[in-house]
């Protein structure tokens, strides 16, 4: 099957020697959810903006439906954007407080000329509100009259309005209380089933990712260190960073036996990326080769790659855990 989004060797360098994204490749199939996970500064949000060409990449290609977005003229890119929408993290900052919900949802429809008449527009807005579980009278109200969870639904209604095939969701539930996260995650899954959407789901919370992603790519300091189908990544992580990340998440099971890997030190600055493997400064397994040579992306199973000289299931032995 051809990928809907195919990204190759993508990088984004900012002035001052910041290598925010440094040569990453991934693809997303139609109807698939790829989660991009990592800690702050790993480049996951920058990647989500590069994928839509909201940011200009330094190198690399972004193929969307086989067409390289980097070669498109500004006008052609604008037309293409109809197929690629985004949902932002902060439901408070991403909706214009002076527009009604109806105006907010109608805006992309108007920009792309998708509702020729006033009546058609109103009907489409009402249909979108219904799809995300908001009452029809929401259209006349303002963002401040809605809670965080409801605002995120509004953001989703705005994103799916133009019938996109890809939606980038950048930490869409991180700002929400846990009792509301389920509402938004389940809504995204329902919409995927109904509309055949593909998602690039950017998140730091691995437990949320577990519930929504088909595949997961783990980022560290501007590169992808491991990619695998979700079930495999959680069952048999091969990169020591993925292992550490999985073991660090506190689990709501009192008294559970834990094999916690506590990484020492801080995440290095993307301005001063360590040579060799970028993770070697914090890796409990680091050897001389890790300090000198960038590890190649090894295929450890079909669809499962890890960039580590010592990639193995559970590479970090139990005795070095706590």
């Amino acid at each position, binding site marked *: 099957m051809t990928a809907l989004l195919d990204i190759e060797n993508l990088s984004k360098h900012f002035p001052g020697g910041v290598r925010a994204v440094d040569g990453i490749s991934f693809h997303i199939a139609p109807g698939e959810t790829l989660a991009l996970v990592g800690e702050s500064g790993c480049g996951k949000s920058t990647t989500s903006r590069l994928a839509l060409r909201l940011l200009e990449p330094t190198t690399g290609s972004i193929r969307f439906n086989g067409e390289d977005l980097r070669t498109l003229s500004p006008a052609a890119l604008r037309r293409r954007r109809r197929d690629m929408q985004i949902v932002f993290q902060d439901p408070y900052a991403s909706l214009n407080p002076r527009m009604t919900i109806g105006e907010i949802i109608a805006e992309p429809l108007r920009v792309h000329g998708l509702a020729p008449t006033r009546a058609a527009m109103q009907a489409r807005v009402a249909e979108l509100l219904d799809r995300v579980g908001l009452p029809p009278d929401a259209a006349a109200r303002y963002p401040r009259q809605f809670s965080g969870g409801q605002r995120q639904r509004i953001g989703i209604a705005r994103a799916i309005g133009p019938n996109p095939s890809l939606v980038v969701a950048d930490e869409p539930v991180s700002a929400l209380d846990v*009792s509301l996260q389920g509402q938004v995650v389940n809504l995204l899954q329902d919409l995927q089933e109904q509309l055949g959407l593909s998602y690039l789901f950017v998140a730091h919370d691995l437990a949320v990712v577990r519930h929504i992603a088909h595949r997961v790519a783990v980022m560290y300091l501007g590169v992808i260190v491991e990619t695998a189908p979700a079930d495999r990544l959680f069952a048999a992580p091969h990169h020591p960073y993925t292992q550490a990340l999985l073991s660090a998440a506190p*689990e709501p*099971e009192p008294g559970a036996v834990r094999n916690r890997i506590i990484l020492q030190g801080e*995440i290095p600055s993307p301005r001063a990326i360590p040579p060799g493997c970028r993770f070697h400064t914090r890796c409990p397994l680091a050897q001389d080769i890790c300090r000198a040579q960038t590890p190649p992306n090894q295929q450890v199973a079909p669809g499962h790659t890890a960039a580590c000289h010592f990639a193995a299931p559970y590479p970090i032995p139990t005795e070095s855990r706590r």
Partner: protein
Amino acid sequence: MNNPLLQVEGLTTAFRAGGALIRPVQDVSFSVAQGGALGIVGESGSGKSVTALSILRLLPDTARIETGRILFDGTDLATAGMTSVRGRDIGMVFQEPMTSLNPVLRVGDQVAESLTLHNICPPAEARARAIDMLRRVGLSDPERRAQDYPHQMSGGMRQRVMIAGALVCRPRLLIADEPTTALDVTIQAQILDILRRMRAELGTAIVLITHDLGVIAEFVESVVVMYAGRVVERADVASLFRNPGHPYTTGLLRAVPRLHDVQRRLYQIPGNVPPPTRFPPGCRFAPRCAEARPICTEHVPPEIALSPSQSAACWKHTGFARP
């Protein structure tokens, strides 16, 4: 059982908000044993942070404690002279270390400040003790880092500095309000590890305020669950997770996404957390509760003891009848 170290009894805190009075904390009671660890868990708007600020008497001018007593080691904090207790006997750590630290003061001086402020030791010794404490919270090269300003440090390092400052006077109680929420998960693991170690070394009791049930499960012995300004359940940590007594606790536990759960759909609690301006009458969770009966929306449920270490404020434990 010995006298509790901290005892909060019937605390109600009111805020003036645009002419109206709102009560984000209402009739909250709990106690913390000497050297114990209590977790206060709740979502945004539950009143957990206002509870902490009320104990510390750090409320803004628009707020006041309406009713209730806060006893620290048997002494009412309202009469104790809070400035002599705060920072010396009660340390505190907040969520955002960047806004809690003074940006124009070297971090070593900030850690030493509470020692000199409370006349615990002369400045030279305070400095040495501050550096020692920075080492103990895991700051490498503490002599040199003590000269840094907060902006030169990462979020994780600033939180270590906050913890060092909170613990340098060897307080008997540490109040930590979402101490790891702003941090990445690998850094959170480091900070919780430090808090656990310091608690063992110094015998400090901890009130840990968080929205994260994972952190609760791993760190505390007893738990108070707050919803919309009220305590809905209190329990030892094992009972709370194994056998929750309040439908809100049950819902919260089911809603938490879990790493090793392969189910695609997440459990969702319907509706939204009400803001303090619109707390419903009766049980405040009733509008979102699948088990609610008419009595729930009319009368505030009393706290019903379920065992010596667990109680829940829910009418289902009285068979939906008033006692």
